[in-house]
């Protein structure tokens, strides 16, 4: 340490090499050998053989172990994905030996616990589609509006106040959202105030509240994308006589489009996978949903409800859980991969 401080040439010589080699404890470069020797000549070094200490790596078993532990931690993330895939596929194979995949994917009656059991997943899919669509119709306009406001209009002071408030929306637990959808939106607003023809549950109430829940997802990712558009483009637009509205819509928005699309796609994936809001407020009857005021059981709603019953390991009921889970995973995985691809391919490097 000390001898390196007093000998800047030696330090300068080793720096780039050390910075590049990220895994070896101390890389030995032939050029430092002479420098190290000269250092030893000037400064009385604490080590017995300073020339060697600068050229060859001191064995550090502790660091070797630490390096492997870090690598293991990183590989664990791969193991999780593999684990998920195996955990979902093995019971699903069991399921599909008893129920044909065709019947599962295209059947229109979902009644896994009835005497004349039927495993058509379409009713669950329609309920998921309804809640997701309603959530998107809520979240995309509100989220994009907020993003443009924060990125293009708001002064830094206002942004600093508004952003954390918006982030709180993402932090509200989904059970609390579910209770809000059931008690306030469905019961008080829809039935008492608006007298809508609806029961205790509806996909509309669940979807609207879910939309509010994903507003922060859409808003913050879109805002990041818009903030990344360089100011020179805004200035160019302003120089041509455009006002901020025109600049936002015709310059910033198209330039940030890939990020915005990715934000919306991630919003879709969150809406499809959201469980507690739909389990509480969308209803528990699996049937094909034809209107927003009807109740319906989504894929996630089914998994949550089936989990309440004590299904024996290896029973068809238990396997059904995983088959629906596999479908859910496949859908969200596809959506996520599309989102990541969009960001990678169309990211403009400004």
């Amino acid at each position, binding site marked *: 340490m000390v001898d*390196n*401080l007093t000998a800047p040439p030696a330090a*300068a010589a080793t*720096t780039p090499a050390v*910075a590049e080699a*990220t895994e070896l*404890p101390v890389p030995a470069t032939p050029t430092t050998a002479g420098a190290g020797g000269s250092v030893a000549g000037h400064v009385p070094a604490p080590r017995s053989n300073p020339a060697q200490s600068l050229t060859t790596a001191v064995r550090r078993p502790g660091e070797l172990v*630490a*390096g492997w532990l*870090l*690598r293991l*931690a*990183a590989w664990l*993330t*791969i193991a999780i*994905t593999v684990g*998920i895939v*195996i*955990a*979902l596929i093995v019971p699903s194979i069991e399921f599909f030996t008893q129920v044909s995949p065709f019947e599962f994917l295209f059947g229109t009656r979902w009644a896994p616990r009835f005497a004349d059991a039927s495993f058509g997943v379409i009713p669950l899919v329609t309920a998921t589609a309804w809640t997701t669509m309603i959530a998107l119709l809520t979240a995309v306009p*509100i989220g994009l*509006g*907020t993003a443009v*406001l924060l990125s293009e209009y708001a002064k830094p002071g206002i942004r600093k106040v508004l952003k*954390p408030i918006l982030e*709180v929306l993402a*932090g509200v*637990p*989904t*059970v*609390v*959202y579910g*209770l809000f959808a*059931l*008690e306030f939106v469905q019961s*008080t607003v829809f039935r008492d105030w608006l007298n809508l023809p609806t029961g205790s549950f509806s996909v509309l109430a669940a979807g609207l509240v879910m939309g*509010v829940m994903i507003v922060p997802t859409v*808003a913050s990712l879109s805002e990041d994308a818009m903030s990344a558009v360089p100011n020179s483009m805004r200035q160019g637009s302003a120089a041509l*006589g*455009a*006002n901020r*509205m*025109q600049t936002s*819509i015709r310059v910033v928005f198209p330039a940030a489009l890939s990020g915005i699309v990715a934000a919306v796609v991630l919003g879709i994936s*969150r809406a*499809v*996978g959201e*469980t507690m809001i739909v*389990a*509480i407020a969308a209803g528990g009857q699996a049937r094909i949903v034809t209107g927003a005021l009807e109740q319906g059981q989504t894929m*996630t709603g089914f*998994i*949550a409800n089936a989990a*309440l019953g004590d299904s024996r390991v290896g029973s068809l009921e238990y396997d059904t*859980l*995983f088959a629906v*889970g596999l479908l859910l*995973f496949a859908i*969200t995985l596809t959506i*996520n991969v599309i989102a990541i691809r969009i960001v990678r391919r169309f990211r403009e490097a400004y």
Partner: protein
Amino acid sequence: MTSTTVRPLTASLHNRAEGGEQSPKAMIFLIVLWAAMFIAIGVLLVLIVTTLVNGAARLDLRLFTEYPASSPARAGARPAILGSIWVIATTAVLAIPLGVAAAVQLEEFADKTKRINRIIELNVQNLAAIPSVVYGLLALALLTVLGVQNKNLVIAGATALSLLILPVIIIATREALRSVPAEIREGSLALGATPMQTMWRQTLPSAVPGIATGAILALSRALGEAAPLLLLGALVFVSYDPNGLLSGYTTLPIQIFNWTGRPQEEFRVLAAAASIVLLALLLAMNALAIYIRNRFQRRW
């Protein structure tokens, strides 16, 4: 000379109905943007107010001291609150070291040109977007493989939640590490420290505020999560205090879900009261995270 000719020109530009900052269209656009913001914040306010109004009647000491009961008047959330504390503490112990270690490996040591590291990176992004119930299914399958009959264990719930928040912690930690300037690392290396020492004594300590913020936000997400725990049999009648990693438990969100599903109106009041407790906890955690971010995060 020139100024007299320029001034009317700019004035005419600003007054044009089409292009001016104050033109009707631009004003309407701005109003729509603010409306979007106010709807989002308004819903949050309405949610908080209605929950407060609905739950105020039962927001008393009984909620904290009593055990669940079939009669709403005697019911409380004591085991659920303690269960949440047990599960979240265990989750923190499991997830934070693992997440930070994985992030350090990916950000500081991994060779980014290698295919395997790019795959890991993509995989972490993807894990962050997998629905939480799927993590519940993973934990359920894991317990089945291990041959565990009774799945309602603190350690099982904490494992599911750790897997769920691991990618969130990794992403936050990587961002915190990335914001530490390269000069800090280079300076340390130039003084003779090994890359591992540099990471442990310089880079990681500099990134602690960012890591703490990310970890607190991730834990607050785990605290509010119910779906994976439902699959692990957390929806049970617990009439004792959880007292260890192998103890049975229920958590606050699960208790709220349970009470929401009851037909009696009094249980909905209890659910709202428990929601207030949960919201207060989460707001406190969020505030702490924002405070750490604003107070301790260094701008280089």
